[in-house]
């Protein structure tokens, strides 16, 4: 188990990258504490799998170093980094039994027979696959196969980090939840550093203590699930997390205040004077209320999603979503939108540009 440090990491799939766009990963500096549960969240193609493969050593970075406990491992091959990786599609050795599959990484490292047996049985018990040990691995269901490939990662007690590359892709929805809580439980038991790559916000937010959100090869925010939800540092995080995502509305800034269609909108705090660029207001649908006063809008659709209603309103041409519990308006009705000031933020060039007032957060 180890602390992982990524230092000025850059990677390009081109031989001679010139513009920043040639880089799949743009300058990553990151510290991951020993024993933490982390998620790398981002849309497909944002570079998260590339980053994962660089940490595991399957890919060499174009620039930068990777340190495990301050020891440079950038040039070490995967088998000498003591890492484990679980892939999107379960990788199992078809011709071997479940037992042999689990024992394989240990036997390759010449671990003594009785220790192998002890470890394999321990892991099998943790994963609840003891009754399958004698079965041929090829005949298992996808979720059990994925458990076995996780088990092969966990069986070594010297692993620095276990990495999961979208491991629940092929699992049936009703088993996803089960396997996810199993993972969380395993993390608490083995206390290894775990990194979980996914594009599914629910998976990331339920698994991780800290979520790293990536977009186009850059880290846009690192934080706890609550941070990401409450104070997105970038409009992308606002969009990507939440259902529906944060409303991002163009606005004008004059005399230290924000205006939408001429009306002043109260913000959470002061505007950062050092930032400039395209100005937008970000407000989560959860904090938009309907009332007698506020910004006028026309209700376009109302969706009943069970526990609440999602109201989609048009403010001029601009679409705004609101989540409300009761007093549901009808489509076509004129309403007034009110934004909860403590949750209303200003973004400049997509980056957060307001600071919360003392004691007014959330």
């Amino acid at each position: 188990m180890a602390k992982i440090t990524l230092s000025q990491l850059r990677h390009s799939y081109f031989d001679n990258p010139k513009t920043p766009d040639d880089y799949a990963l743009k300058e990553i500096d990151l510290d991951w504490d020993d024993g933490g549960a982390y998620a790398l969240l981002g849309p497909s193609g944002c570079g998260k799998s590339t980053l994962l493969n660089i940490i595991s050593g399957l890919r060499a970075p174009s620039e930068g170093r990777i340190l495990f406990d301050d020891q440079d491992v950038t040039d070490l091959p995967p088998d000498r980094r003591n890492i484990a990786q679980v892939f999107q599609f379960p990788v199992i050795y078809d011709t071997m039994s479940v037992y042999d599959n689990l024992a394989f990484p240990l036997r390759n490292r010449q671990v003594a027979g009785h220790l192998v047996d002890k470890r394999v049985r321990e892991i099998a018990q943790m994963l609840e696959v003891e009754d399958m040990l004698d079965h041929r691995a090829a005949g298992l269901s996808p979720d059990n196969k994925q458990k076995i490939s996780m088990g092969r990662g966990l069986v070594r007690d010297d692993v620095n980090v276990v990495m999961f590359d979208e491991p629940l892709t092929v699992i049936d929805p009703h088993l996803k939840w089960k396997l996810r809580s199993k993972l969380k439980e395993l993390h608490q038991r083995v206390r290894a550093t775990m990194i979980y790559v996914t594009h599914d916000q629910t998976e990331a937010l339920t698994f991780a203590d800290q979520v790293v959100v990536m977009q186009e090869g850059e880290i846009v925010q690192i934080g706890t699930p609550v941070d990401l939800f409450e104070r997105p540092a970038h409009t992308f995080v606002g969009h990507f997390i939440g259902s529906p995502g944060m409303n991002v509305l163009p606005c004008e800034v004059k005399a230290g205040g924000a205006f939408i269609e001429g009306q002043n909108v109260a913000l959470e705090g002061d505007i950062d004077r050092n930032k400039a660029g395209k100005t937008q207001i970000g407000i989560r649908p959860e904090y938009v209320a309907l009332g007698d006063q506020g910004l006028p809008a026309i209700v376009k659709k109302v969706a009943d999603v069970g526990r609440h209603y999602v109201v989609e309103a048009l403010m001029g041409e601009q679409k705004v979503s609101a989540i409300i519990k009761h007093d549901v308006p009808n489509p076509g009705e004129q309403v007034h939108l009110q934004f909860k000031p403590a949750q209303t933020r200003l973004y400049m060039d997509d980056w957060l540009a307001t600071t919360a007032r003392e004691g007014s957060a959330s």
Partner: protein
Amino acid sequence: MKTENQKAWFFVLPVLLLVAFNALIPMMTVVNYSVQETFGDNMFFWEGLTWFENLLRSERFHASLGRQFLFTGLILAIEIPLGIAIAMSMPRKGFWVPFCLVIMALPMLIPWNVVGAMWNIFTLPDIGLMGYFLNHVLGISYDMTQNVFAAWVTIIIMDVWHWTSLVVLLSYAGLVSIPEAYYQAAKIDGASNFAVFRFIQLPKMKNVLTIAVLLRFIDSFNIYTEPFVLTGGGPGNSTTLLSIDLVKIALGQFDLGPAAAMSLIYFAITLLVSWLFYTLMTKDDAR
């Protein structure tokens, strides 16, 4: 409720007719010949199982059957491992892939009798490229029309040259279908190259290899044209394989009854061995 509908039979009928005309009826005429004696003029005499009994006791049949098994055994023992080895050393991606594939496919595109003729000329001791080189440059006495060992080596090499590509292409198809994650997982698990071959590549190639072994068995067991053109079964009878012997009996001696009996036994052996191969190679899948 289950609906009973007999109409389905109607749809099977065309296939049944087709199979009847191209397989069952011709086959039954062979069965018909195998139990009778004929001297032409549509005159037939009932012989019962005499031809079968004679054939199974015949030393000539035993000898050609033995040669047939030797030939097939040797080429399988060479072509399968060689094919896998070549497939594994071929590039998986990049500029050279199509080039390698075309080179590999070329020998298979040449007609059987052309292959026989090519190798015949190639090995002529005085003017053939290989024959001349062996005899006059390396000083090794080589003449496959005189020497039994030389004749055998030549037909084996010819078949390996002509058909290893089939094994290569099938194995290659099996290899490229292995997802990259398997190799990555093996790397992380610390597997040796041999372990990767034994536990990932070989199992993933198993299905295509089953097909390769079956095809190569059936084709080589029934081989006729290439050795016939190359050696004509000689020197002596040393390369007279089953099919060559069968044609000699049927068309050379015009013994239609014994030839028909031999065809049926020949067919039965091919079927039996194919079934054995298939059952043995797929028995693990059932579990």
